[in-house]
């Protein structure tokens, strides 16, 4: 850990290097675009370098939050005049996960696009820089700026395949909903700047003081959260995610589901613990509100995921379900809860990325993503089939994948803090999601059971989603089978790390230690003893965690088999009314952005009303 | 705190400035409503241009010359131009309405 006074040059380089390379690639695009390999190599080398730097930073910040004041503008009289990066090991870890997934998706797109012009690489590198900057920044307006950088790059990447109808509608809905969320967040930033006259998170947190929050602090908190919750795909702000995911090119979907959604929720935790936590008095009302939102999202996401026939949309809804579980982990406001959410994010990010890459390989090889049309045709893709099944089991919290640790710790922390039902919610949603993906694995890759009911909407899609690539369809190239394998192996390896729990809980404590954060950022003093709202909890892997992990996976397998052989099961004919109810729910996901914005305003009104009455 | 308020004494005879601000604020609110209520994009662009000019006048009254310049060039010139070109582009493209007609 460097002496607190000196500024660690790695922190700005991690964001500036990808930006510079992206700009130079675009500047020299006229020369390079003939031989494309140079582009891919330069882009991959950049993201590998960024990943390495971030892992080093993660190790360095384990001792304490690393602070970097741009242009050397240290605070004067305890008031910040410049912008700072204030990164603990949790934020560096999340940024490192981002860089790893960007590297994996770039290696995957080595042969994936037939005409990947320079713009794809520039957009991906700026997208990486935006996400890393979002993780590391310690200034609330800078958070909004990197939120926008990440957003605009994502809109452009979603609409990369402009030939089909889907990408246009997906990108348009995505852009409008996220922009409205971002501008409402900016209104919140304006309000909190009026009260505290500061933009640095630590300084605002200190200025807000403790205990009784006035009306302005509550409203500013909810408004700033709107943009972050919309990006984090929490019900009722989640509608855009399925549209954007179903159409974005596969390497981009990896980043959307793997880490961009999780960044929104990291933003919620960061803004709560660094800025508003003490000012709002850590009331139980806030825990209750976030718990309710998280559980609702987990169940709605899992329900919609099981009903999907479009592979990418199924994975998109499972991401929404997991986003709900991460929010539940945060909502417990305990170090173990946050550590559980972090482990869940790492495990889910790697496993979900592997699933999307396999779907990309299937799309490359078989030219379709409709489960009913692909039934039994995936037998030729042996390795992809095995990796897809392993990743599906990982999604169903099967040990040794890191997801079972996350589910276990969130459940433990919840039951020891008066919310025993959380373990049940985690299991139900994991079973539903795992069941859906395992049903696809069994049906598509091993031809088990009967093809599922034809989804009428997909047939109207008329133009079958043309394979995103041309070139020889004979076999799936190595660059498309290796990355998912590596990602699944990494998820399993991380699950087996001996003291992962204590490392993550220490990092979570670092985030939740408000006084220490203010002292480090504004005072520049090193913090030796971390004191958070609630104490540490044991993180040893207990038998109960293993049992719940295996139980969930077994439940998912059973559900998948039920889904595959449902015609032969006698008792299922009486499910007719359930299907009618399910269809009415489907119409909510209407694809019309006007509806999504109405739900967004409704969501803000509900959360605002609930917090206003309980925190008055 | 560092800078006590005593060192700054706002002048008392500011009612003229306040009147100007109130009038401009009312005009800006009305213009914003008008931009939203004109449903045809061709007319909406003209109202948007007016709205951009009114906004820059308001910013000028709020002692923000930089933002005034920026809002004038962007809000009143660049954005309406790009939207006008978009609308002319839409008219030229064979959309389904043309085929229906």
């Amino acid at each position, binding site marked *: 850990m460097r002496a607190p006074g000196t500024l660690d040059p790695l922190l700005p380089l991690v964001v500036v290097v990808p930006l510079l390379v992206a700009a130079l690639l675009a500047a020299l695009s006229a020369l390079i675009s003939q031989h494309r390999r140079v582009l891919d190599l330069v882009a991959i080398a950049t993201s590998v370098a960024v990943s390495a730097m971030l892992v080093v930073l993660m190790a360095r910040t384990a001792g304490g939050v690393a602070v970097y004041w741009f242009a050397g503008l240290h605070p004067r009289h305890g008031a910040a005049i410049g912008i700072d990066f204030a990164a603990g090991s949790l934020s560096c870890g999340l940024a490192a996960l981002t860089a790893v997934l960007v590297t994996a998706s770039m290696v995957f797109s080595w042969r994936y696009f037939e005409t990947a012009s320079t713009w794809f690489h520039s*957009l991906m590198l*700026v997208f990486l820089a935006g996400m890393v900057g979002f993780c590391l920044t310690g200034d609330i307006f*800078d958070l909004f700026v990197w939120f926008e950088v990440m957003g605009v790059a994502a809109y452009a990447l979603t609409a990369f395949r402009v030939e089909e109808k889907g990408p246009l509608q997906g990108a348009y809905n995505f852009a409008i909903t996220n922009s409205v969320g971002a501008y409402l967040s900016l209104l919140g930033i304006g309000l909190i700047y009026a*009260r505290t006259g500061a933009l640095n998170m630590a300084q605002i947190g200190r200025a807000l003081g403790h205990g009784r929050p006035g009306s302005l602090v509550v*409203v500013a908190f909810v408004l700033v959260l709107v943009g972050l919750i919309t990006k984090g795909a929490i019900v009722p702000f989640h509608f855009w995610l399925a549209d954007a995911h179903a159409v974005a090119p596969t390497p981009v979907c990896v980043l959307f589901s793997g880490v961009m959604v999780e960044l929104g929720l990291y933003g919620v935790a960061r803004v709560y613990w660094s800025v508003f936590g003490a000012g709002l008095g850590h009331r139980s009302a806030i825990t209750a509100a976030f718990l309710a939102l998280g559980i609702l999202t987990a169940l709605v996401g899992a329900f919609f995921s099981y009903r999907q026939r479009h592979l990418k949309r199924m994975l998109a809804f499972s991401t929404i379900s997991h986003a709900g579980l991460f929010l539940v982990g945060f909502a417990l406001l305990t170090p173990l809860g946050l550590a559980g959410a972090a482990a869940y994010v790492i495990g889910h990010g790697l496993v979900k990325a592997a699933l999307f890459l396999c779907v990309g390989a299937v799309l490359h090889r078989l030219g379709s993503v409709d489960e009913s049309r692909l039934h039994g045709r995936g037998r030729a893709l042996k390795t992809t089939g095995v990796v897809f099944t392993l990743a599906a089991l990982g999604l169903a919290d099967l040990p040794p994948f890191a997801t079972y640790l996350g589910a276990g710790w969130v459940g433990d922390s919840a039951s020891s803090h008066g919310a025993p039902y959380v373990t049940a919610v985690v299991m139900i949603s994991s079973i539903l999601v795992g069941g859906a993906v395992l049903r696809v694995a069994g049906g598509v890759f091993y031809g088990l059971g009967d093809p599922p009911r034809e989804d009428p909407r997909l047939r109207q899609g008329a133009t079958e989603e043309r394979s995103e690539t041309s070139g020889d369809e004979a076999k799936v190239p190595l660059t498309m089978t290796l990355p998912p394998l590596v990602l699944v192996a990494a998820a399993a390896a991380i699950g087996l790390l001996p003291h992962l729990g204590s490392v993550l809980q220490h990092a979570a404590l670092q985030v939740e230690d408000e006084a220490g954060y203010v002292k480090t950022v504004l005072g520049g003093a090193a913090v030796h003893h971390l004191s958070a709202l609630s104490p540490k909890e044991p993180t040893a892997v207990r038998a109960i965690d293993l049992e719940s992990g295996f139980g969930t996976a077994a439940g998912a397998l059973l559900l998948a088999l039920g889904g595959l052989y449902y015609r032969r099961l006698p008792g299922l004919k009486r499910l007719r009314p359930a299907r009618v109810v399910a269809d009415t729910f489907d119409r909510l996901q209407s694809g019309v952005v006007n509806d999504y914005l109405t739900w967004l305003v409704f969501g803000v009104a509900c959360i605002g009303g609930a917090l206003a009455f309980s925190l008055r | 705190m560092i800078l006590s308020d005593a060192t700054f004494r706002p002048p008392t005879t500011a009612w003229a400035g306040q009147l100007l601000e109130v009038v401009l604020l009312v005009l800006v609110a009305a213009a914003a409503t008008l931009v939203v209520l004109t449903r045809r994009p061709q007319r909406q662009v003209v109202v948007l241009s007016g709205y951009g000019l009114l906004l820059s006048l308001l910013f000028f009254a709020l002692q923000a010359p930089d933002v005034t310049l920026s809002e004038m060039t962007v809000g009143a010139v*660049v954005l309406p131009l*790009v939207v006008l070109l978009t609308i002319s*582009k839409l008219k*030229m493209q064979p959309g389904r309405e043309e085929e229906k007609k």
Partner: protein
Amino acid sequence: MRPERRLLFFVAAAAGFAAFLVWGLTGLPAFGHYRGPYGYLIDRLTVHYTHATGLVSAVNFFFRGFDTVGEEFILFVAATGLATVMRGLREEENEVSGGEAVSAGVSVPRTSDGVRTLALLLTGPTLLIGWWLTTHAQTDPSGGFQGGAVMATAVVLIYLAGEYLKLRRADPIVVTDSVEAVGAAGFAIVGLFGLVAGGTYLAEVLPLGKHIGAVNAGGTIPLISLCVGVEVMAAFLLVVSEFLGQTLVLKGALDS
């Protein structure tokens, strides 16, 4: 949802949202009583730190310079994204305009000579004003954004003068794309100089100039303002010509 039901649902939700918002606004300090420390600190420190008298540009390009790096790349990505989205359109247009599918009903008025001369006369001064704005960031109310935007409007004048097709051949999209990228890269590189020489990213490394508020005062502020001006001009140029290009590709088809 059908539009009528959605409107009812929205009105109810918006009423709750408005009440919540106004409830929060009551907590704000009265209008005109700004008391936050940040503004007064900047008032006090700018001249000492940067010898610049234009505080807003000092905040934009020095105190909060890293925001501006992020924002430059927002513009860079939007222009690149727009070019990507429109790229497909251009290829399709060539096939379509090759055939007679384009409806000939659209009449294209010739630009009258009066408009043409006036526009060409004004192009020079517009560029000059834009250049003045870009270079006087550190002294007067101006900066890279406004300068770049005004310079980009010079192209609008050329379009009004109907000379755009000649300009189009001399300035293909690729040039503006790389100029824009150079502008963005330039800004990031200036920041890197600060890291190498001054120890921190975006540090003031150039001499601050003797006279406070002079054109050469402000250390890196004028340099950054220049980079931002180039990038904003190129980005606006790219955006406008993307849309201009489309309409004229079709018009071109109509004339021939």
